[in-house]
């Protein structure tokens, strides 16, 4: 087994999770599961970023005890990115959930195929 | 300004006419076209006056010469107009044919609806055609060429029946397809030589041609593409579909003049842009000759078997326009002279024949060839004109067709293209026989319907003598006289064309 495989555990896990989330978002027919997939995908990226920023043996990048030396803290940029990313993904998730509620109220289903079928039927009735 | 006027005037006049009609239509319910049946209205007179003024403007531009640069599309591609002798020849021919057909159309359109719309587009098209003739470079020519397709479409669509729309679609798709085939060539040439303005004799030298590997392919694409309008095989299919459904004056100019726009485009590309020296003796020349000869033969053959009169004439156009293309493909001065004189002659002849067909439809309503028996008793004078035009088309001296065909045949023999050069006169001869075969029986049946004809059929069809109205008859007579006069005194025309030929080769 390659030694680098053991060194980059977080990255590997995040890639696997990204794949899982991506596949769920792409292939699952259930809207709720799609949204879960999206969240898994986003979280995997945050894990990846957090792992990139982390430096063994250093502290949180918050000024403590007046230590100004940068070598005492981990890289703060990825943490900032993760925070921003979380905000973005929360709003996207909220929008998706709102849309899902709308669709459920209208078609009484969470299955995208089922929704499409009901939609076609509804349109034919109108004609 | 003098160059611009003959292009702008008819377009402006046509647009104004269309706008005026639109306003009229929204004000009163009845279409004004159907109002004055048979009477000549003020609108008709304005229309004729506009056409006459156009002819004057074109002749003035041809006499005055000059050039104008309109604008630049990109750094190298500009739009501009320039008067030269080849352009003048085509432009004057176009405007004269347009005027004569226009006079005829006033009478013809009394039997159709939406006459004003026809007038409007008819005026616009002549401006666009003059634009093609006076174009200073390939891009301008292409712009006007596309505009011609679009503006002449309403003429084909005029009756708006299902057949007309289908024919219009076919016309459109053939034209657009051909134009885009040509566009490929234009893009290539623009890439190779940058400046696309026309110079007599072409812009390419042998070295430049050697440096452009796809040049011949591009030229061939343009020949096939622009050949569409001239009805050259394999994209000839629109002609026999579009002509019968259009009103007769429209088919007359489609056949007599608009096919010549395709010829004009090819003259410009081969003799004014690429240069005959580059193309002579290449596969492009042979392929072009073969295509033209095939079309000549095929067109005559199909015309011979066709029963609908206007369709027969349309197939005849397919064949005759390819006489011109064959002459151009020879790339020697004699062939070139034959081609351009044939442009003039065929234009006059075919316009005359179609106007005659239109007169027959208006007066008797007959559309098929076998209905035309005994026509000589209804309209002897018109049939006499038809006879003259037919003889000219077949190429019997002293009528005009003989002169051009003589040049074509000698040019073919002198072209140095081997077997193809010898095959040329043979095909031309066979086609002339076929032409006689499909045109003359109408005349013979018309004057001498035979013993069994009298009696019953006359009673049924009401064969009383009834020449078409003067408005219809005059253009036919003038054109028929022109075919004879041009045949008897071809000297000035041939000299003029030979001067162009000397300049380009």
């Amino acid at each position, binding site marked *: 087994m390659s030694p680098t495989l053991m060194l980059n555990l977080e990255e590997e896990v995040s890639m696997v999770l*990204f794949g899982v989330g*991506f596949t769920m*978002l*792409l292939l699952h027919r259930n809207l709720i599961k799609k949204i879960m997939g*999206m969240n898994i*995908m*986003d979280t995997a*990226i945050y894990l*990846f*970023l957090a792992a*990139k920023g982390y430096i063994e043996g250093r502290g949180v990048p918050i000024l403590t005890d007046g230590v100004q030396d940068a070598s005492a803290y981990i890289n703060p*940029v*990825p943490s900032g*990115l993760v925070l*921003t*990313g979380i905000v*973005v993904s929360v*709003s*996207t998730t909220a*929008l*998706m959930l709102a*849309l*899902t509620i709308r*669709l459920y109220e*209208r*078609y009484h289903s969470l299955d*995208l195929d089922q*929704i*499409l079928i009901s*939609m076609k039927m*509804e*349109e034919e009735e*109108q004609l | 300004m003098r160059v611009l006027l003959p292009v702008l005037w008819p377009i402006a006049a046509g647009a104004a006419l269309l706008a005026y009609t639109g306003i009229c239509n*929204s*004000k009163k*319910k009845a279409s004004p076209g159907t109002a004055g049946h048979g009477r000549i209205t003020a609108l008709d007179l304005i229309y004729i006056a506009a056409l006459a003024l156009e002819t004057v403007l074109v002749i003035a531009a041809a006499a005055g010469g000059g050039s104008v640069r309109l*604008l630049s*599309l*990109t*750094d190298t*591609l500009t739009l501009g107009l320039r008067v030269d002798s080849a352009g003048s020849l085509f432009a004057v021919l176009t405007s004269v044919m347009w005027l004569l057909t226009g006079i005829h159309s006033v009478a013809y359109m009394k039997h159709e*609806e939406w006459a004003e719309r026809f007038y409007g587009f008819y005026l616009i098209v002549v401006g666009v055609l003059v634009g093609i003739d006076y174009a200073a470079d390939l*891009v301008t020519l*292409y*712009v006007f060429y*596309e505009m011609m397709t*679009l503006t002449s479409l309403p003429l084909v*669509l005029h009756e*708006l029946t299902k057949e007309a729309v289908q024919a*219009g*679609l076919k016309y459109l*798709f053939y034209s*657009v*397809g051909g134009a*885009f*085939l040509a*566009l490929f060539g234009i*893009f290539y040439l*623009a*890439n190779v030589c940058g400046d696309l303005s026309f110079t007599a004799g072409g812009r390419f030298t042998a070295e430049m041609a050697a440096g452009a590997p796809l040049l011949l392919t591009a030229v061939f694409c343009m020949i096939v593409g622009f050949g569409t309008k001239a009805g050259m095989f394999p994209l000839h299919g629109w002609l026999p579909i579009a002509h019968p459904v259009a009103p007769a004056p429209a088919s007359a100019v489609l056949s007599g003049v608009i096919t010549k726009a395709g010829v004009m485009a090819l003259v410009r590309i081969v003799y004014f842009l690429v240069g005959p020296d580059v193309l002579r003796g290449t596969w492009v020349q042979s392929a072009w000759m073969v295509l033209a000869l095939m079309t000549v033969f095929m067109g005559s053959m199909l015309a011979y078997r066709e029963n609908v009169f206007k369709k027969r004439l349309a197939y005849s156009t397919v064949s005759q326009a390819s006489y011109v293309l064959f002459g151009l493909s020879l790339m020697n001065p004699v062939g070139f002279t034959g081609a351009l004189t044939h442009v003039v002659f065929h234009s006059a002849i075919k316009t005359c024949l179609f106007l005659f067909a239109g007169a027959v439809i208006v007066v008797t309503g007959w559309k098929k060839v076998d209905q035309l028996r005994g026509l000589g008793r209804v309209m002897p004078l018109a049939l006499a004109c038809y006879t003259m035009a037919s003889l000219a088309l077949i190429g019997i001296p002293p009528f005009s067709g003989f002169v051009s065909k003589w040049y074509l045949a000698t040019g073919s023999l002198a072209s140095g293209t081997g077997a193809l050069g010898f095959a040329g006169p043979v095909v031309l001869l066979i086609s002339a026989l076929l032409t006689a075969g499909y045109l003359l029986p109408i005349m013979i049946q018309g004057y001498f319907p035979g013993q069994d004809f009298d009696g019953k059929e006359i009673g049924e069809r009401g064969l009383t003598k009834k020449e078409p109205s003067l408005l219809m008859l005059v253009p036919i007579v003038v054109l028929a006289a022109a075919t004879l006069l041009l045949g008897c005194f071809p000297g000035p025309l041939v000299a003029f064309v030979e001067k162009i030929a000397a300049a380009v080769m």
Partner: protein
Amino acid sequence: MSFVQNFPFFSIIIAMFSGIVSSVLSGKKARAVSIAAITVTTVLSAFVLAFCLRTGQSYTYMMGHFPAPWGNEIRAGVLEGLTALLFGVVMFLSVVGGLRYTEEDVEPSKQNLFYIMIDLMLSSLLALIYTNDLFTAYVFVEINTIAGCGLIMMSQTGRSLTAAIRYMVMSSLGSGLFLIGLSLLYDVSGQLLMSPAKEAVARIVVDGSYQIPLLVIVAVVSVGLAIKSGLFPFHYWIPDTYGYATPTASAVLSGLVSKGYIFLLIKFFYRVIGTENAAHSHIINALFFFGVAGMMFGSLRAIMQTDTRKMIAYSSVAQIGYIYMGIGLGTQAGMIAAIFHIFSHGATKALLFISSVGLYKVSGDRTDFLALRGSAYRNRLAGAGFLVGALSMVGFPMLAGFISKLLFATSAFASPHKMLITLIALAVSTVLNAIYFLRLMIGLYRPTKSGSFVEPAPAERTGGGEEADRKGRGAKQAEKGAGPGSGSAAAAANPWTMRIAIVCFIILNLILGLFSQPIVSAITDGLAMFG
């Protein structure tokens, strides 16, 4: 520092704040604010363009007080200014042209939401154009997605809801890929700002280290943005999305939003990866291949449609294919052609969407070819607008589309390996374009049988929506050119705002077609500044 240099930042912030302010305003006021914001940002973009043209160079603008490797930056050059200007103009005309229909399609209580979405869309597009920071780009990509989704679902029909959820799903996939791509880039280069990242990437390439991650980054970012802009195999959300949104939304989404992502991708290639490296990677070839496939597929599907909106939408699929084909050529000329096509297609497609609505309105809100027969007589201006748009799409000389085709063809001659495929693809797709657009045009200009027009019943003209649609179906008024009737129908369908929009769009098309040279040289200069 000149005051003008603040303008990119101002325009982003103005658009964003007008969105925030609009949330407490009524629909009418929100509309006024939105139109004002678009106008102001467009004028500001014009100043930026003029400034960059005068100084002949681009500049970066530091946001906050952190210098280059840490802070956030905006960058403006000729290309950015030009794109922002044209996007602003198209946005303005789309909003103005669709005013009446927005009023009809969107619930009164939700009017202000629509304009908030428009403001956010504008702000995110401007940010995508101007930003020099990849993570900022990601954030605005998401804002753009959310705003786009909001625009789609505004009309609240079943179709638009499902279209919105599909759009969201596809967009989330795209954004996820984009985000992982830039995380990986941050991993290998340690940079998120474009210019330092480019230096780092250049070092990596010289080293020969991290070759595979770099390839993965290019692939993931390209695919992500391709999904979001609807390149061929990922296009299936396009027809429903563009087909069932309100006209303004369709025009903006099709004309601008997908182009914003493409612009970002071009920036990514130029400003981060470097054109040389991008041209050498096989990703470019994949984009080229899918672009060509999209041109064919989109055109073929468009021919099969009988519904005008779907036909226009599928034509968008084909046009996106053109742009990717240009990018895929991997040459400077190809890129210029692609960028010019972004502009020309933006102007043309928005014109088609806006003017086609004018035609539906005089045909009883129906969109199939049969119902539209002869509608160009009933609504002449919309007919003329549609004609110009269709001819430009087909590549009629003197219009924008012709110059695009000319540029594509010229650039094809410069890349010998892809020349033949490009030319054949151009020729075939042009002919296919001609078939479906001209077929529809003839239908539009063809009176119905025996010269009678299908006139919508009066009820239908005043009230929009589905009931009126049902009532009016099949109502015929046999009188040809029914004088005052047709006039008032056209007047009802063409509010003056729409007339102005259509006329301006036509003029814009003519400008792009006739005076393309300055624009093309500006694009060339702008790309050189990207360098």
